[in-house]
């Protein structure tokens, strides 16, 4: 199975966009090597600005650039793109509905060894509460590219969360459409809905479940805001039991988004796999996925537990 860095694809996609559209401006805050905006910088040095370790200034400056018709891509780690500069994102970017695309890398627990201070597990929660902004958590590198292109084509602010690690490319999936989720595997006993890195884990969990004679419908919902209400309601009618999996705190992320839809549209049981109100810590990404109960085994176990009840 092919494994790629979504951030590599991001850097290359920026260059593609930069070649065809002069309005593209890229900003970074001293992490251009890691976020791969340096690839754009090398091609278009006049349309790239490194603002040093100063994310608040970067976000508000992005707003000023966008007010003059620029399409601004802003990158840093998810931790700093969200919490550090949240007021600037809310008041300068989102309130004005500016064409600023925040493409954050190093989201989630799989940041690994750097530990809790760098593991953004609340970012989706922060942005979900803000009007105008759209949120995408792609499951692999090709979906990341499609998400970046959708953000480019769609006016207004976006938050796209990419990870640090190489991720396996999910084969035979539908192409990305903004605001739409899609079914990866059809089953009958339970629906497992996820986004980002946990889509692969959900598919692996389904393999384990199949061995035990259980079949799950596996759904990918890359767009978290606006969430695909129709699909979620449809899935909830077919499956009375739903398990939502995400590399994020269980408050305010995908689980919350889905529970909010179903609470009013079709109340069914919704369970969760996520980080349970805890900070992360140092460790390898694989170790951390296990420690916080996010990997395939835990998803399979949880699904079985729900089905037993």
């Amino acid at each position: 199975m092919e494994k790629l860095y979504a951030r590599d694809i991001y850097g290359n996609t920026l260059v593609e966009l930069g070649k065809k559209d002069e309005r593209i401006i890229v900003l970074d805050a001293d992490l251009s090597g890691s976020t791969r905006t340096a690839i754009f910088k090398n091609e278009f040095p006049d349309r790239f600005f490194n603002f040093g370790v100063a994310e608040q200034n970067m976000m508000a400056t992005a707003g000023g650039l966008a007010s003059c018709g620029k399409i601004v891509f802003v990158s840093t780690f998810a931790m700093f793109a969200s919490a550090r500069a949240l007021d600037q994102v809310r008041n300068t970017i989102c309130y004005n509905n500016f064409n600023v695309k925040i493409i954050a890398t190093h989201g989630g627990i799989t940041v690994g060894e750097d530990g809790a201070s760098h593991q953004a597990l609340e970012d989706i929660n922060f942005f979900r509460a803000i009007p105008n902004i759209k949120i995408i958590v792609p499951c692999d590198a090709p979906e990341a590219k499609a998400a970046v292109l959708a953000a480019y084509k769609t006016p207004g602010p976006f938050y796209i969360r990419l990870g640090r690690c190489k991720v396996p490319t999910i084969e035979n999936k539908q192409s990305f459409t903004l605001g739409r989720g899609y079914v990866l595997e059809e089953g009958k006993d339970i629906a497992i809905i996820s986004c980002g890195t946990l889509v692969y884990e959900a598919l692996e969990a389904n393999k384990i479940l199949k061995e035990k004679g259980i079949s799950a419908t596996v759904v990918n919902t890359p767009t978290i805001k606006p969430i695909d209400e129709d699909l979620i309601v449809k899935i909830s009618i077919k499956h009375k039991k739903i398990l939502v999996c995400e590399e994020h705190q269980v408050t305010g992320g995908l689980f919350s988004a889905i529970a909010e839809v179903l609470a009013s549209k079709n109340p069914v049981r919704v369970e969760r796999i996520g980080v349970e109100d805890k900070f992360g810590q140092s460790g390898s990404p694989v170790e951390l996925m296990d420690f916080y109960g996010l990997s395939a085994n835990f998803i399979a176990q949880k699904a079985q537990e729900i089905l037993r009840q």
Partner: protein
Amino acid sequence: MEKKIKLLKSKSNSIRKLIIEMLSEAKSGHPGGSLSAAEIIACLYFEIMRHDSKNPDWSQRDRFHLSKGHCCPALYAALALCGYFPLEELMKLRKLGSLLQGHPDKRTPGIEVASGSLGQGLSVALGMALACRIDKNDSRVYCLMGDGEIQEGNIWEAAMAAAHYKVDNLCGIVDYNRFQIDGRTEEIMSIEPLVNKWESFGWHVIQSDGHNVEELLEAFAKTKTVKSKPSVIIAHTVKGKGVSFMEHVVDFHGRAPSDKEKEVALKELQDIEDDESTL
């Protein structure tokens, strides 16, 4: 020149009267820092800036960003006097559905970017200035900050970046009226030595009496000649300027005048105008 000065003084006075009227009608808002900024805004909108109220999106316009957004009554008055929207709109300030929000909002013709959460405006202005530079557009960008506001760290991030990128089409103005909500700036959180701070951040600093239009015009003219660095005008002002019982009174940072106070204030401002016109 004399005619120009007279006009700007008269516009400043009109702005002040409108500030008092609209805040009294709104029954809330920030008179102190609006009054202190009247000459700065009058000079920009009636002399310095290239702009067209009939074509607010004109690409060649100079840009103004009110980083100290709570002082928007002064800006709204200037925009209305320039014809961006009818003067009657001013009396709807802060009311539900109004074109004129309690802090600047893009729904108002002539407002480029919303503001109100302090400390972000210099970055916004920096972004505008960079965009103009990239587009080889010789527009200039002006950003009015409060003295209390520059206690925000974001201002100094922007100051560092603007100097780093040698953004010489950017002009900051600090309305140095020496008061913030909780009291005297010097007592709450000293921003001194202010000139040294901006200079050490790589800015060209000009000090001016913020109520003397001749001095202000000279300062603005000077900023246009400064190359390879941004400029900042430290405008020494009086909080509540023009209304005797509001001058240097911290209470009027964020309290609207009562009906009675409005009458007295308008009378005082009218007297100033009459004195000036007979000169």
